[in-house]
């Protein structure tokens, strides 16, 4: 069980903005942390890791990491930290990167096998692809058998296929080690696949805390099939109107009545919704 209650000034954003959060995480829970940039996600992770100081309290499995009187150094916190940019030791082979953290050859061999890196263990990081490098840094983060694994947008630099593969590996590793994990992510499918809980930050405060479905399923009244897009054009055809809306990388058309068309403004962000019964999947 992790208890965290901290207060800290956020750097480089609007004046007097404070990161002020309090929450508990169960042992083995996989928590996704989301929010706009500048909302305090990375600061929260860095504070947990001891890389930044803060006022408050952090208690991890009955061990005090932070209190009025104690500040445990990062080295003593049993944290695994994975950054977006890998942060590997370039002058060491893959296997050495793992063993540097903890001289446990059995665990290193096991982790290399789980992340399909066994064949590459004698290579140096610069001979690896982005996906392979990130697998090394995830495996390395687990070498300490950390009490908390912190992942700061670990997969956002990878292409969709590699992302998908590494999401599955993270899931396998989480099942195997049961490490309490906090992951910063913006990708709804990633959050849904991996996390059992989502905490959303805004301006340094928690604005949502719930299951992925509660937080990510966008609904409009009872309608479960809902997307946000930009209204590009409304064209009159016969007695109806056709609205063209950009959603993500594509355009969709929606039929609207004259009365509905009157209330819509070109260029506005609109929400397209329909009942869960209507769409077809192919």
């Amino acid at each position, binding site marked *: 069980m992790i208890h965290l209650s901290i207060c800290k000034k956020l750097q480089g954003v609007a004046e007097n903005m404070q990161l002020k959060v309090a929450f508990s995480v169960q042992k083995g829970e996989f928590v996704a942390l989301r929010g706009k940039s500048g909302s305090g996600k990375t600061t929260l992770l860095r504070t947990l890791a001891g890389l930044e100081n803060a006022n408050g309290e952090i208690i991890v499995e009955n061990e005090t990491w932070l209190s009025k009187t104690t500040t445990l150094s990062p080295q003593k916190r049993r944290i695994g930290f994975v950054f977006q940019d890998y942060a590997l030791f370039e002058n060491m082979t893959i296997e050495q990167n793992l063993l540097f953290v903890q001289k446990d050859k059995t665990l290193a061999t096991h982790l290399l096998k789980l992340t399909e890196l066994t064949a590459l263990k004698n290579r140096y990081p610069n001979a690896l692809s982005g996906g392979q490098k990130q697998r090394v840094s995830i495996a390395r983060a687990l070498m300490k058998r950390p009490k908390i694994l912190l992942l700061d947008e670990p997969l956002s630099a990878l292409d969709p296929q590699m992302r998908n593969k590494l999401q599955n590996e993270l899931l396998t590793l989480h099942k195997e080690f049961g490490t309490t994990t906090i992951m910063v992510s913006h990708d709804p499918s990633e959050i849904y696949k991996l996390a059992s809980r989502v905490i959303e930050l805004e301006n340094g405060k928690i604005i949502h805390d719930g299951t992925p479905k509660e937080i990510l399923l966008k609904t409009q009244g009872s309608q479960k099939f809902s997307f946000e897009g930009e209204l590009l054009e409304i064209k009159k055809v016969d007695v109806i109107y056709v609205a063209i809306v950009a959603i993500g990388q594509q355009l969709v058309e929606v039929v609207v009545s004259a009365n509905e068309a009157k209330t819509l403004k070109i260029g506005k962000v609109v929400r397209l919704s329909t009942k869960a*019964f209507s769409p*077809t999947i192919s």
Partner: protein
Amino acid sequence: MNTIQAQITAIHSVNNLNIIESKTDNDTFIMMSLDLPASLEKGSIVKLAIKPTNIMLAKEKIELLSCENQLKAKIVKIEKGELLCSVTLEYLQNTLEAIITRKRANAMNLKTDENIILLIKASDIYMKEVL
């Protein structure tokens, strides 16, 4: 998914809005659509599709109804859940499914082997592919 093969008999267009008529051995289908595939023309064979939740059932044809498509079919199976009822239907050689509420299925006293009318609005049919 419910699909029915039909042959296009007419396409009426106003800009990118279309009403498409197609026929099976028994019926004429009326369908509304926005932009159409370029390959579509009179005589094309298409696969029409309807979601099971978009099919209404009636004991007999109803004149003076705005619903464009009324088809004769036979009930081959009725599966009742707590709230909903899945009715499997035979239309020509096609097997179709309609999902209605259990309450209406009971009220209508639906029976297997019974002939029934399917009501489908032109805006609820779509074209799955041009064959």
